[in-house]
């Protein structure tokens, strides 16, 4: 189901408010990771991130589009030509990194060393729901 223009605007306002409130309550490390991530997103990626808590990345080698969500495991989706999820990828940096750092690592990996990242990542089917 596609939201109306007014619905989209309300959704954007809602997510941005939720983002600001939730970050304010988190630890210093979480905030640092969040700020580092925001500082290293292109303007359109930042807009997507602040609105939907996810953004799209172009693979540095293949040119494929990946969608990275700011949420838990298997948060990277490889999109097909229709913009639908072709498969899910799971990879993350070693160590106890905060969410912002994990997501920034995934962005940098897909843009800068995509082949290595794909070799390391575990791949999962898209399942029944859409990306």
């Amino acid at each position, binding site marked *: 189901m596609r939201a109306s223009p007014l619905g989209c605007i309300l959704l954007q306002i809602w997510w941005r408010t939720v983002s600001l409130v939730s970050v304010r309550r988190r630890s*210093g*490390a*979480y*905030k*640092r*990771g969040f700020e*580092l991530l925001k*500082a*290293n*997103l*292109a*303007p359109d*990626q*930042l807009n997507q991130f602040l609105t939907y808590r996810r953004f799209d990345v*172009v693979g*540095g080698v293949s040119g494929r589009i990946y969608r990275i969500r700011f949420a838990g*495991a*298997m948060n990277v989706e490889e999109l097909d030509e229709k913009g639908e999820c072709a498969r899910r990828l*799971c*990879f*993350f*940096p*070693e*160590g*106890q*990194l*905060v969410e*912002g*750092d994990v997501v*920034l*690592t995934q962005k*940098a*990996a897909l*843009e*800068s*060393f995509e082949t*290595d*990242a794909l070799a*390391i*990542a*575990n791949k999962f089917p898209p399942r029944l729901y859409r990306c």
Partner: protein
Amino acid sequence: MHLQIVMDSHGDTRHEFDPADFSSLATAEARFHELTGKGFRAVALGKDGAPGELVRKFDPKAEQTLFIPQLQGG
């Protein structure tokens, strides 16, 4: 000043260095080799969120270098 950003459990640790200062540059280069020797990948960050570039040799011209711990599949 140029910046090396090392991701860690504190969010990140930042090290500034002056590329015009020999001592500062040597320290930054030593840090680069130490971290990449431990398995970190170095990515020279692009401006305004543009895609970065994987750096295999120390580049004193890189304004911001991000050090990423080894990746693992989940």
